């Protein structure tokens, strides 16, 4: 019971952590670490930070596993080349532990290694032989192509021999005729195959070296042919070059060979050639047969691997992670045990203890010493761990993206759950758009089990992880939309309007409505389309944003009080919190009260013109004691007092804390040394490793008075300026909500509202087309684009305006040794 209740509490402040020390006998160290990895609740400290990576104890084992992983990568590469899919086990729900099997025995790991070695040898042998076969097949194919090409070429020429004769000189004539007639075979040509990309270069060089006397013919081979150099199939061309004289021919051959072309001997005689062709064809058929069998057995081998590879790989990954953890532990050879240190949330201590206890009890060897768990007292700062669930994780991510909270500081993620969607909704206030967003988010939420099992791309995953944020954003903006009385920029008339138009008027007159009551919910629809609608809604939304901002900042500021109390730092309350509070409340708290007071007075009834609050605030600073339009009696006195308070707060904020620090420093100076010794002796009493890793302690910065003073000066300047600028920053709520309302009005009037008067076929057609048009633009521009923009503004209001009031963010994230993260890095 205690466990469950304490498990849930770490959302307000990060979970309390303990540094524990484990003495694990070497015989069961693997098993225990496996168990801890499955549990995923302990973050191991690196006790060997000063030891070189290759001097650690388990480098050899890791290297061996690295080699296995390399072999697996080799397999998966080959699989990818041959388009064989690796059968992955269905993606497990990250909540469950099912994907992680039980501990694999050390001997089985040896089998895995052995197995990988054998397989690698076999696969690479098969690949080699298939490559040699491919090369021979390529040879045959190319020869065939060359033969058929030259065959065609000669046929073509013999029909047009008269043309050719005119072109060729005497020697060639004789040669050509003699070879066609089956006379003395004078080979005066070179035939071969070359990569298509190189043909131009070859042509150029030949042309140059033959001094322009180049007779060359080439045909493209339609099918890509294997290239043994790059081991890919590439486009190639057949070519045939004529020249006379042995010297020239040998030179051409040399050039062709140097350009990586394959030359083939072609029988000049037609009959001999056809015999040659059939010979090559026979050979090629044989090779194809052998190649087929080889490929088949290779594919069979690989698909057998494909079925298992995923599971094997996971086992190896886990095994490797265990060795990596062991590397960061201290390995005591004399006592034959592994000494590990790590951070565990207090709430999980019990389960860690019981799991380890089970293991030391189960170990068959009765002589093994049980695992000793030692909770250390330490001055180190523990990592920050906020326990989240699927609902809060999105909001926590928002805050973690800005900075990781200091250990045990109030978590900014908790209030964000409400304020983030609410601030968004103020800017996105439209019930219709909110409804669309809610529907989209609901789809994600209701189908989350199925989507979780899918492979998601990056952008979609972002929306999916934030599905609950989206849902709340949608619901909240439906609420604000109803308050603004906007549904797709059109207002509803659910209730009776609070205003009444005069019954009779002439066209062209300006008519004034008379107030008869108050509208029951949000904006009165009668404002919609009224001439002074903008005047009214602007003033209203502007003041509302100031009030919202004031409230948002004020309660954020209260968190800093809670933090100071929790960390027992009185000086921060007196020297930081109180002057800041007075400063802020004296100026903007006062403004907020004035806004509400001004609203609550019926200015027309008492016959006074309402005073401008903006000018009031400005003149409060520029000409104190001077009131142009009075809001309430004794206003001048109140304002002067407030101003004085604010002025006093500045030096208070600036000086008190540094002065106190100086005082402390001078007082502490005398017995500083002694205290230090005592405390270290106390904390290290139960730490056997104290002498070993004292040196890697966190650096405790010694603050000097100068540091504190500079820090405080910056803080004071920043705080005072930020009070003004942050309040002004909340005006974005008004600006974006105005922009959103206006944009949706424009879209409505420009598209669908035009079709409402039309009748007949055109009316039907136009309405359907315009609706589609309007709806698409609404989703794309108003919901997606405007929504993103409003979300970013809301994000900024949280990160800058709210979190600057209390958030320190100097923590480090708790990264437990967890098999789920080992297997799926990047998730969780």
């Amino acid at each position: 019971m205690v466990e469950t209740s304490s498990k849930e509490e770490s959302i307000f402040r990060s979970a309390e952590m303990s540094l524990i020390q484990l003495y694990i006998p070497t015989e069961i160290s693997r098993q225990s670490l496996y168990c801890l990895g499955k549990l995923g609740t302990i973050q191991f400290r690196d006790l060997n930070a000063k030891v070189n990576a290759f001097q650690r104890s388990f480098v050899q084992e890791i290297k061996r596993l690295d080699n296995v992983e390399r072999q697996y990568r080799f397999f998966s590469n080959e699989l990818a080349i041959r388009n064989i899919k690796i059968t992955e086990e269905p993606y497990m729900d990250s909540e469950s532990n099912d994907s992680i099997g039980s501990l694999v025995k050390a001997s089985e790991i040896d089998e895995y290694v052995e197995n990988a070695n054998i397989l690698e040898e076999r696969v690479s042998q098969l690949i080699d032989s298939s490559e040699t076969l491919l090369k021979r097949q390529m040879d045959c194919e190319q020869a065939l192509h060359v033969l058929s090409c030259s065959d065609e070429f000669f046929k073509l020429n013999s029909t047009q021999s008269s043309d050719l004769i005119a072109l060729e000189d005497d020697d060639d004539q004789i040669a050509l005729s003699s070879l066609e007639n089956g006379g003395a075979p004078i080979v005066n040509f070179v035939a071969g195959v070359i990569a298509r990309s190189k043909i131009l270069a070859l042509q150029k060089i030949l042309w140059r070296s033959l001094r322009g006397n180049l007779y060359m013919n080439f045909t493209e081979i339609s099918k890509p042919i294997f290239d043994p150099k790059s081991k890919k199939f590439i486009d190639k061309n057949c070519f045939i070059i004529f020249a006379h004289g042995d010297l020239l021919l040998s030179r051409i051959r040399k050039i062709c060979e140097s350009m990586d072309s394959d030359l083939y001997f072609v029988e000049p005689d037609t009959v001999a050639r056809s015999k040659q062709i059939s010979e090559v064809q026979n050979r090629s058929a044989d090779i194809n047969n052998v190649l087929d069998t080889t490929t088949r057995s290779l594919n069979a081998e690989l698909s057998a691997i494909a079925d298992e590879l995923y599971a094997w790989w996971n086992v190896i990954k886990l095994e490797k992670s265990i060795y990596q953890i062991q590397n960061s532990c201290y390995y005591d050879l004399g006592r034959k045990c592994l000494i590990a240190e790590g951070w565990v949330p207090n709430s999980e201590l019990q389960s860690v203890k019981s799991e380890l206890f089970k293991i030391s009890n189960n170990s068959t060897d009765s002589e093994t010493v049980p695992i000793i768990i030692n909770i250390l007292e330490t001055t180190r700062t523990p990592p920050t761990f906020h326990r989240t669930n699927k609902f809060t994780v999105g909001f926590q991510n928002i805050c973690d993206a800005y900075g990781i909270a200091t250990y045990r500081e109030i978590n900014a993620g908790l209030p964000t759950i409400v304020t983030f969607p609410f601030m968004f909704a103020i800017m996105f206030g439209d019930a219709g758009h909110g409804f669309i967003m809610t529907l989209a988010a609901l789809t994600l939420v209701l189908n989350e089990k199925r989507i979780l099992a899918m492979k998601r791309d990056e952008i979609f995953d972002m929306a999916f992880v934030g599905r609950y944020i989206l849902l709340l954003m949608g619901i909240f903006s439906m609420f604000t939309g109803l308050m603004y009385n906007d549904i797709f920029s059109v207002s509803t008339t659910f209730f009776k309007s609070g205003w009444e138009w005069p019954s009779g008027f002439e066209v062209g007159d300006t008519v004034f409505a008379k107030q008869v009551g108050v509208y029951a919910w949000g904006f009165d629809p009668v404002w919609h389309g009224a001439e002074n609608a903008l005047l009214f809604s602007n003033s209203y939304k502007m003041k509302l944003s100031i009030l919202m901002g004031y409230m948002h900042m004020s309660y954020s500021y209260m968190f800093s009080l809670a933090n100071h109390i929790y960390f027992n730092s009185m000086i921060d309350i007196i020297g930081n919190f109180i002057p800041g509070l007075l400063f802020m409340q004296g100026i903007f708290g006062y403004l907020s009260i004035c806004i509400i007071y001004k609203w609550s007075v019926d200015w027309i009834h008492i016959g006074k013109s309402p005073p401008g609050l903006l000018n009031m605030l400005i003149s409060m600073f520029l000409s104190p004691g001077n009131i142009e339009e009075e809001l309430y009696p004794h206003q001048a006195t109140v304002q002067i007092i407030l101003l004085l308070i604010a002025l006093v707060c500045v030096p208070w904020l600036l000086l008190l804390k540094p002065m106190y620090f100086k005082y402390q420093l001078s007082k502490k100076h005398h017995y500083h040394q002694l205290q230090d010794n005592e405390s270290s002796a106390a904390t290290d009493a139960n730490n056997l490793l104290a002498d070993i890793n004292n040196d890697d302690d966190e650096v405790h910065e010694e603050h000097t008075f100068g540091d504190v003073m500079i820090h405080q000066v910056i803080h004071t300047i920043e705080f005072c300026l930020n009070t003004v600028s942050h309040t002004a920053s909340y005006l974005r709520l008004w600006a974006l909500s105005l922009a959103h309302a206006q944009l949706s009005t424009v879209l409505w009037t420009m598209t669908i509202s035009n079709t409402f008067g039309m009748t007949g076929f055109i009316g039907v057609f136009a309405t359907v087309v315009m609706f589609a048009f309007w709806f698409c633009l609404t989703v794309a521009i108003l919901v997606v684009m405007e929504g993103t923009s409003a979300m970013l503004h809301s994000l900024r209001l949280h990160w800058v305006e709210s979190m600057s009031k209390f958030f320190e963010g100097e923590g480090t994230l708790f990264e437990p040794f967890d098999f789920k993260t080992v297997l799926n890095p990047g998730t969780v």
Partner: protein
Amino acid sequence: MEGLFFNIDNGYIEGLVRGYKNGLLTQSQYLNLVQCDNLDDLKLQLSSTDYGNFLSNVPSPLSTSVIQEKSSDKLYGEFNYIKSQSTDLLTKFMDFISYGYMIDNVALMITGTIHERDRSEILERCHPLGWFDTLPALSVATDIDSLYSTVLIDTPLAPYFKNCLSADDLDDLNIEIIRNTLYKAYLEDFYKFCQEKLPIPSNEIMLRLLIFEADRRSINIALNSFDTEITPDDKLKLFPNFGKLYPFGHTQLSQTEDIESIKQVVESIGEYKNFFDNSNGKTLEDHFYQLEMELCKNAFTQQFTISTIWAWIKSKEQEIRNITWIAECIAQNQKDRINNYISVY
């Protein structure tokens, strides 16, 4: 002013190169590397640097050549990536960088051919950055004339060739002369390009780097031509016509016939003063590299320059040389000489 428009074309690349520069191994990382006992340890150490898992797909046992090859591959990949991103002036600049390697490749190819080495073996040893399509066809040529008229006329090196068509038959000495003439023409062309086309401050830095390059070549030529039949006039023709030693140093260098007199000439230049100081077992080559690295490091101190690319490539090449040296020392168990690497970052 130069900063105003620089980033339009080159901002991304400069950022990239500065990122690469930050990935260069530092002194402390070298200290870790030299502690390694075998090449697998070296691989482990390198995996925590910018090299990442560049060796992870190589089965053990590792060899020095594999380490060198893989690390060079990484450099070439990065170079080609930058080149594919470059525009206009920068493309030309990158081309110029690769011409140097092309010259080396041409010389290598011809030497290999006249010594009747296997073509594929020579091609393997060619520098990938100086590769061009018709490079293998060089193995066909038997004399300079045909070399030029069949193959090289199509390459960017053609203009540099016009001064060496006079040499008659191909032998080792002549090839070396061809190479140096080509290199001289190339350096002068590059120098002119940097001087005239590059904006401030790229040109200043590049000129500084090229001047050093030219001087290094001049000194090397003078050193290597002691007992040959090259006349002082011919030597003078091989020296690039700029640099700190130009013109008086060149005349003196061309006359020298022993190390002492070269030393005298070189030491008259302030920066080169300690070049011949071979205490600590440092060779002249080491001094060259050391000074080059210093210059490259300084090249990074200015913003808005494309000279960082040159500096980065040279630094990276040095780094690969260092790693290879360390790996070689580890592999051959020569730990006492392992500290002869050059690191300035």
